[in-house]
């Protein structure tokens, strides 16, 4: 969950939503009506769709459309309209980077209407048998577990929004539109169900909320995230990225929120998170309490850039999550 979504929550009237978690999908369309979505061509077959909550990665080609994340539910019609300006072919795959509603909120609508009507196909490898064709929603197993089970005080997502193709290990892959797409799962990073998607031919990485440019990383402890996992995830992104010339260009990085980036941007962000970890870890070793750590302002040098006072995810919240994540449980 991220600031845009939080803003929606703050301004929208939350109604009973039988088809989605009550805190996850405000049904008011007030904001979405006035919000403009933007498409940014990234590289190769890949585009970045901005404005629907979390960034959506769109890969188009002769076979169809593959999406990484689907944004907030209320923007689904606009998302489909934007995709249709790039391709009139059906959506075949949706990859979910994690469980938050600003990234999976559009699953249901996009899977139903973006893929075209479900139809039967003959299975070549099993003569005489048929199967219903539909959009495949790929995610780590932990995303499925969290979407299908209601958290305290929340309703589960509707079944039609759940991942249909999950993986348990650290990697998964598909080949689509003439391109290998690799998925990597850094354990316990932003959440415990994160996926980083790497488009190998287009040379684009879609990171989900492990990397954002408009705030400190959210360490969602309740959903299994951890500070060290977050740093490991950022280092994994750096491993995938290769700059073209003097640390610029080459592999492009689509963050969960914010602007398009390349390796150097991830590098500075990774440095920041690592340095803040080092400081908080040293303070914990000295026996400082959480309040003492907060008072020491371990994020002072980065606050004007990443802190949003009074916002959804402040420097204090980041420090608190980092402190709790680094404090050994007794």
């Amino acid at each position, binding site marked *: 969950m991220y600031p845009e979504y939080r803003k929606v929550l703050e301004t929208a009237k939350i109604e009973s939503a039988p088809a989605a978690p009550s805190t996850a999908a405000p049904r008011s369309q007030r904001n979405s009506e006035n919000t403009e979505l*933007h498409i*940014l061509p990234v590289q190769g077959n890949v585009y*970045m769709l*901005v404005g629907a909550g979390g960034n959506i990665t769109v890969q188009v080609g002769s076979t169809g459309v593959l999406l990484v994340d689907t944004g907030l539910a209320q923007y689904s019609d606009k998302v489909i309209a934007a995709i249709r300006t790039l391709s009139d072919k059906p959506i075949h795959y949706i990859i979910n980077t994690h469980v938050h509603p600003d990234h999976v909120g559009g699953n249901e609508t996009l899977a139903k209407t973006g893929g075209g009507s479900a139809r039967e196909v003959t299975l070549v490898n099993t003569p005489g048998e048929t199967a219903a064709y539909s959009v495949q929603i790929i995610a780590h197993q932990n995303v499925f577990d969290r979407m299908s089970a209601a958290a305290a005080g929340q309703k589960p997502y509707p079944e039609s929004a759940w991942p249909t193709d999950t993986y348990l290990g650290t990697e998964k892959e598909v080949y689509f539109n003439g391109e290998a797409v690799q998925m990597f799962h850094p354990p316990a990073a932003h959440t415990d169900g994160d996926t980083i998607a790497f488009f190998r031919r287009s040379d684009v990485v879609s990171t989900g909320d492990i990397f954002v440019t408009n705030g400190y990383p959210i360490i969602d402890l309740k959903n299994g995230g951890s500070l060290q996992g977050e*740093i*490991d995830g950022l*280092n994994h992104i*750096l491993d995938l990225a290769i*700059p073209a*010339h*003097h*640390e*610029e260009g080459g592999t*492009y990085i689509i963050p969960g929120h*914010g*602007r*398009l*980036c*390349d*390796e*150097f*941007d991830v*590098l*500075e962000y*990774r*440095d920041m998170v*690592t*340095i803040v970890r*080092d*400081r908080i870890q*040293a303070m914990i070793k000295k026996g400082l309490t959480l309040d003492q750590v907060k008072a*020491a302002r*371990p994020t*002072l*040098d*980065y*606050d*004007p*850039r990443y802190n949003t006072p009074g916002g959804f995810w402040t420097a204090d919240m980041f420090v608190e999550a980092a402190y709790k994540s680094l404090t050994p449980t007794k």
Partner: protein
Amino acid sequence: MNNVTLLRLAGAALLLAATLPAQDLFDGEWSPLHHEDYNERIPGPDLGDFAGLPINDSARAFAESWDASRLTLQEHQCRVHVSPYIYHGPLHLRIWEEKDPTTQQLIAIKNYISTYEQTRTIWMDGRPHPPDYAVHTFMGFSTGKWEGNILTVYTSHIKQGWARRNGLPESDQATMTEHFLRHGNIMTHVTILSDPVYLSEPLIRTDDFLLDDKQLGGWLWPCEYVEEILMRPKGAVPNYLPGQNKFLYEYADKHKLPHAAVMGGAVNYVSRISKGVGNGED
């Protein structure tokens, strides 16, 4: 012809001269003159010398934590000086104009900067700057216009970089206004840097260049990153924990300056320090 008419004609002529496009004014190859800010530009700034820059507390904290060993990390080894800083260093500079082959209208003014082999484009065709979700680059996105014989350039979408290369940061939210002025064979380059993240007020700097069409070589800057520190733990980022940077006051102590005097910030400008203001005595 009366005096009023003469005055009007002279005024019109001046106006015409001021508004004529100054085509080709900067075309050629230029070498930097390093007399200004020499110590910072050529040997390089001392660690802990933040004087003269209107930095805020966050910038100072960033620099206090900065360990030069960070430059040994592979991804940092070929990092480019951002456009507000790159003209400050040693470089060869080539400037030329790019024109529409059909209309001969000026499309862009190009700068090739030998340091890090950077080609910078200053768009002169009135195009808008990219949206805020577009990628940032080391040179940023620049648009220019002629103000008489002065080329004025506005740059946005710059990557994070240096305000001074001893750890003082410049954020990716910074923007820059530049003025290129020519006096004979000398070109003065004025940069006005605004950084809402790390500066409390705009930072204004000037550099001078000499027209030098006989430069030999020195136009390439190959850079290939290598493993410099073996066995370093993966993901380690060299940095000083708060209060542990033993080099922080080395420069101040060497020159017998009050520590506060070299810590930067608008309040600590030299003229104020000399009056005992801003160095802890006020």
